[in-house]
């Protein structure tokens, strides 16, 4: 069930990413929806599932980007594991707590990708720093929004389940 939910979320991220690129050509420079999914998946603190989730998301992102296959796979695997370990030590009760975690994760992810590209590719022409900052900011904001939305969805599902149970008990 959890795996199904994760795969559905990944499919949704791919659709949203493709739609974003259609509407705004520079979308992928400023927004990284895949990273937001990796971070949200890691918030439950389970480092094994976070690591594997990061691997799956990274592989999907690699298939949709140019250059070497495996740059985002490596980076998102480390980010997933790191975010899960951070979640074990931090208590995130509010959505705003996700903002610094996602922003730092974005910076670290881009540092890993750039580092690997520098080592593996001849003369890789690194991305402009301004876009690194923009991506970190948008990742943080989107993380907050997605976390709030997930929380609202969970609460409304629980309310619906309780109401159904109460109705059944009354009957």
């Amino acid at each position, binding site marked *: 069930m959890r795996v199904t939910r994760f795969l559905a979320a990944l499919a949704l991220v791919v*659709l949203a990413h493709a739609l974003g690129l259609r509407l705004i*050509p520079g979308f992928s420079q400023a927004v990284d929806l895949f990273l937001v999914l990796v971070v949200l998946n890691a918030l439950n603190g389970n480092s094994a599932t976070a690591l594997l989730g990061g691997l799956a998301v990274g592989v999907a992102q690699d298939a949709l980007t140019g250059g070497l*296959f495996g740059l985002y*796979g*490596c980076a998102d695997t480390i980010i997933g594991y790191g975010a899960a370990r951070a979640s074990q030590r931090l208590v995130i009760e509010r959505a705003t707590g996700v903002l610094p975690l996602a922003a730092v994760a974005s910076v670290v992810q881009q540092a890993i990708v750039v580092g690997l590209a520098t080592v593996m590719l001849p*003369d890789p022409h*690194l991305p402009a720093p301004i876009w690194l900052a923009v991506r970190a900011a948008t990742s943080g904001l989107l993380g907050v929004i997605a976390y709030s939305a997930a929380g609202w969805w969970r609460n409304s599902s629980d309310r619906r389940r309780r109401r159904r149970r109460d109705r059944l008990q009354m009957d």
Partner: protein
Amino acid sequence: MSERRTGWLLVVVLVCQLVILSLQAPAAGAGGNFLESVVLRVLAPLTRAVALATGGVSWVAEGFTRQRRLVAENRELRARVEALELDLTQLRGVEADLEQLASDLDYQVPPGGRPRPADIVYIDHASWLRTLVVYVGDGAVERNQPVVAAAGLVGRVVLVAPPYAKVQLITDRTAAVGAMIERTRRQGVVGSGADGLELDYLPRQADVRPGDRVITSGIDGIYPRGIPVGTVASVEPADELFYRIRLDPAIDFGLLDRVYILSRPPLPEPLRHPGAG
């Protein structure tokens, strides 16, 4: 799973991925492996669905002004077709002369390659790692086949995952195109620099100026000769020996809608790299 085991799992996964990366690095951009092909085959239908949906929405949204626009476009296209038919007639004459000359000299003209249309289902031309995914349908597509648009060169096929194919754009960091100045036939290599496309290895004594058209030279074993690559935007000395030449690409990648894959097979690998054995 205990944290210790998870740590070991992380190490194993990272080592496997670094090995995959290392195996690709010497031929960066020539890549494509089985895992990438499988994942692309799974994800590309999603991006294609988005492409079809947004195309449909645009079509409906433009419906109100469509008729007026179509009448004007029809008029313009008729004039263009007339001009193109005139060019075609002249070119047919030139082609016949070329074939006659080739026959007289016992010389075989290399094939130009028939273009096959392919729909774009995913394009990311602005980010640091650029890519293009096209839908090729049932037709056979091979790696390293050139991809062009009406205005000029787009790139080459780097991964085939039927019915999709991944294309390396000429603006990609690892792309290189054998090219020449059309006016002087002076040859160089077009690659992606910090500020866009650049034509490298042109010596300081070469005759080159802004506005010169750059076309493929046909010597790299992948792209046939004569496809527009771009126009010289600026010429500056890079060092004592060479120029630093910036190009305006022939293609506006933001407006690409459909591309064509040339069916001419590329030069076999041993002939492209004679020393590699």
